[in-house]
């Protein structure tokens, strides 16, 4: 098993507030890893540190290393734009741009310099197909992305992310604002996407973690209490705190 990302003793600070207190975890390639844990324990911060989204916050600082394919993503020689291209992100609330469906998916490629119509069309189509959205929107590519339903918008955001061919896709509670059917569709999608991408998903839905991921890490107060095979954690957790959390008795 190959690890695409290796996180070693990661500590993060906002001003002097210490959020992550030494997180060490390896992310296996082409697998789905779930991050679970109570609110405010640093799951989202962790995710946003992996694609350097926290860089925009001026008080943010981190210790420890994050390796992507063995390369430190916070190295001064590394271009942050390149990191975000390689580590894509899907957000909690679907956030398509107020543009057409086509332009939403083409956005990443345009930003990275692609302009040939034929090439854009090809990638837009394949990305939408990959995101299981093509059949629903193929006749309305010029329509605004805002006219789609919440579930469709989220799949569009996934299509937009895979269009730039990242290696890792971070998902921050991607189904928390969706209805059950849309949630199922996204979960099916995640299942399919893991063949080509590595996925790290933060979820508050424990069942979702058991359904979509092979590995799970339980975060509590900025540390990982337990990590390992999802089946193991949900049937036979080692730590009492993990047990209490996943059985819903605190958190």
């Amino acid at each position, binding site marked *: 098993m190959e690890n695409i990302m290796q996180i070693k003793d990661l500590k993060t600070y906002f001003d002097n507030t210490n959020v992550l207190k030494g997180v060490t975890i390896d992310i296996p390639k082409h697998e789905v890893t779930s991050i679970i844990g109570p609110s405010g324990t640093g799951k989202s911060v962790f995710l946003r540190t992996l*694609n350097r*989204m926290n860089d*925009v916050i*001026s008080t943010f600082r981190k210790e420890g290393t994050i390796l992507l394919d063995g390369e430190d993503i916070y190295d001064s020689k590394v271009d942050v*734009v*390149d*990191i*975000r*291209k390689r580590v*894509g*992100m899907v*957000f909690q*609330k679907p*956030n*398509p*741009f*107020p*543009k057409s469906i086509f332009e939403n998916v083409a*956005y*990443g490629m*345009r*930003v*990275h310099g692609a302009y040939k119509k034929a090439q854009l069309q090809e990638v837009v189509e394949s990305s939408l197909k990959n995101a299981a959205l093509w059949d629903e929107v193929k006749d309305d590519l010029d*329509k*605004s*992305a*805002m*006219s*789609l339903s919440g579930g469709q918008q989220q799949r569009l*955001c996934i299509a*937009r*992310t895979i269009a*730039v061919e990242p290696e890792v896709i971070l998902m921050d509670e991607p189904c928390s604002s969706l209805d059950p059917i849309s949630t199922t569709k996204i979960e099916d999608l995640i299942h399919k996407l893991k063949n080509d991408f590595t996925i790290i998903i933060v979820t508050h839905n424990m069942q979702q973690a058991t359904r979509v991921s092979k590995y799970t890490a339980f975060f509590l107060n900025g540390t990982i209490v337990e990590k390992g095979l999802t089946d193991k954690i949900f049937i036979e957790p080692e730590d009492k705190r993990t047990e209490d959390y996943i059985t819903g008795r605190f958190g």
Partner: protein
Amino acid sequence: MNRMIPPKYAQKIMNVVFWAVGILAIAILVMVIGYLLYVGLPQVNLTFLFSDPIDNGAAGGIWPSIVSTFYITIVALVVAAPLGVLAAVYLAEYSGENTFVKTIRFATETLASVPSIVFGLFGLAFFVVYLQMGFCILAGGLTLALMAIPTILRTSEVAIETVPQSYKEGSMALGSSKWQTVIRVVIPAAIGGITTGIILGMARAIEETAAILYTVGATTTVPVSLFDGGDPLPLHLYTLATEGISLPNAYGTAAVLVILILVITFSTNYLVERYTKKMMGR
């Protein structure tokens, strides 16, 4: 507290009051415009629109004034819109919050509340005399631009600030730089507000009299270059009315000015709305 009026009736009474206030506001607008058009429109015909004035406007038309207004507004916009919008982008997206930025904000607000005649005098001293432009369209346009910048800046800044953070994050997460995000996502998403700001600034420029009184001169011929003098509609109107040259023609000019402003406002509103609707999928 002893309730004098039962809540049910209080609600009804207040409904009536709010309706009345609303209707009053509309009524005033309709009255002013209606009266102007009622008195002014009879003067307006093709000859009035497209011929030169005779005897300083006592007779003849207002063609040179229409052209002057057009020119001077374009000059003001070409200068003020990019400056205002770029400054707004800087303040909303780049600057953060520090003393320098606070100073800029304070300066902008002060600038917005400076009386237009003061702008006019500044224009006279700086553009006309110091920069030796003389009384001309350029000097007038630049003076108007100075006046329009605060309006455009404030409105655009608010519009840019209301662009959801999630759009920007979505863009950044796809690997676009800050500048690409601003150009491709933030400004298009804020274009409605930005256009409104530009229109407000433009409306202010079109209707302004005092600021151009000392900068544009009062040449009653059609201006050809930027360095020609001009006689924009408000100034023409002002001269006609204050110097008692021709009150009917003053009304005619006013009617044309009002129609011009209405047309610009409505058509831009329509276009912006259509664009926003299309982008927001409504």
